């Protein structure tokens, strides 16, 4: 039962790689967007808000198909990237990371936004009277105080990215060793006879990964409260 085959390991490691890359690349964008949404009122803000949350409510297949149309070989952006920068998303693990990054973006942004909103503006004022330019205030006060929220968002985003299925399989298909993540591997195993044991092993692994992610994010949330009180 617990004999994990090389093919299963490949799927697990690929999932971890895709999830990590998606999260690490999405985080700076997530922080920027969260900060904008937390601190500024601008024209079209609710539209930006809606677009970010769209992947949460759209059928994942729709998101995947839209990605295929945009970032596929013949897509507007995908064609340009392939011709000019040599970056190809279609049917590559990078495409899986892109799909996972977009699908997990709302979960990444939300805790960061909440933690930035919770930072006391009075502390930022104090920092500016002490000589910190606005970007230094952000780096030395706002971001460190929001850091537990940033980490919690990264953990949640990572967990979502690891489990992403619909958009990924639509966009980059289900190629073992290239785009076949845990979810896609489980799906494939349920479609073949005698696949149950292997599918269950992967199910167990994904439960463990998700539990670790949730417990970690809980811990960061507790840390956030302590930090705000200077303990």
């Amino acid at each position, binding site marked *: 039962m617990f004999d994990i085959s090389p093919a299963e390991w490949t799927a697990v490691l690929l999932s971890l790689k895709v999830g990590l890359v998606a999260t690490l690349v999405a985080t700076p964008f997530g922080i920027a967007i969260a900060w904008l949404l937390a601190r500024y009122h601008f024209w079209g803000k609710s539209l930006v808000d809606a677009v970010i949350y769209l992947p949460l409510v759209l059928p994942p297949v729709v998101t995947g198909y839209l990605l295929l149309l945009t970032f596929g070989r013949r897509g507007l952006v995908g064609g340009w990237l392939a011709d000019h920068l040599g970056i190809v998303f279609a049917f590559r693990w990078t495409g899986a990371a892109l799909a996972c990054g977009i699908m997990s973006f709302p979960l990444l942004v939300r805790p960061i936004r909440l933690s930035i909103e919770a930072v*006391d503006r*009075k*502390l930022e*004022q*104090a*920092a*500016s*009277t*002490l*000589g*910190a*330019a*606005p970007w*230094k*205030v952000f780096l*030395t*006060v706002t971001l*460190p*105080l929001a850091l537990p929220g940033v980490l919690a968002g990264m953990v949640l985003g990572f967990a979502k990215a690891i489990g992403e299925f619909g958009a990924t399989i639509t966009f980059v298909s289900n190629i073992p060793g290239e785009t076949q993540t845990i979810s896609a591997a489980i799906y494939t195993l349920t479609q073949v006879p005698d696949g149950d044991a292997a599918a269950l092993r992967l199910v167990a692994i994904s439960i463990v990964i998700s539990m670790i992610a949730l417990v970690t994010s809980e811990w960061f949330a507790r840390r956030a409260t302590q*930090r*705000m*009180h*200077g*303990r």
Partner: protein
Amino acid sequence: MLRVDVFKKLGDFTVEVKFTGEGRVTGLFGSSGAGKTSLVNMIAGLLKPDRGFIAVGDEVLDDTLAGIHIPPHRRRIGYVFQDARLFPHLSVLQNLHYGRRMNGVAYDHAHQDHVVDLLDIGQLLTRRTGQLSGGERQRVALGRALLMQPRLLLLDEPLGSLDSARKAEILPYLIRLRDEAGVPMVYVSHDPNELRRLAAQVVVIKRGHVAAFGDAESVLADITPQFVD
């Protein structure tokens, strides 16, 4: 020398204040809601006057006619808030050095020792800010503002959130600060006794306007007890 001549509309309330502070400590006296904090925020640059002029010494910080508004981080004005506003993610020592680091001032051991001794905060340096008492927080906030080597120190009711025993504990430090630190101060309070002990000149502010201005003894002598809340 601090020259202030500002007008600011805040909703239904207007702040219109003009005075020139000459002494080491200029007191701003008035009941809560009189506009003292708005005025101090304008001096710090956190609030921009609708029209008017603010200068410290020869340096113009605000001049709406000339289109000058120096942002707070370039004013080098130390601000001690009623609620201290220490950074909770930094230790006491890191808080103390924050202003110095942000202003690119070189580390000066003698100056640090002097400020630490003056405020008697040597035993607090390694603590987290959450472990400090109210009086200790205010002393650290004072030290943090002093270590950036400000050209002016704004103290907005620094004793306001303390009980009378704590006030009596901090007041001697403020007097030492006035006599030894050599930084001009603006001291905001609604307690005439504090101002009598600290300030040379007092500006009395009532509903956003200057009600009286002059040397502390004579101005505060006219204050009837019921004016004090």
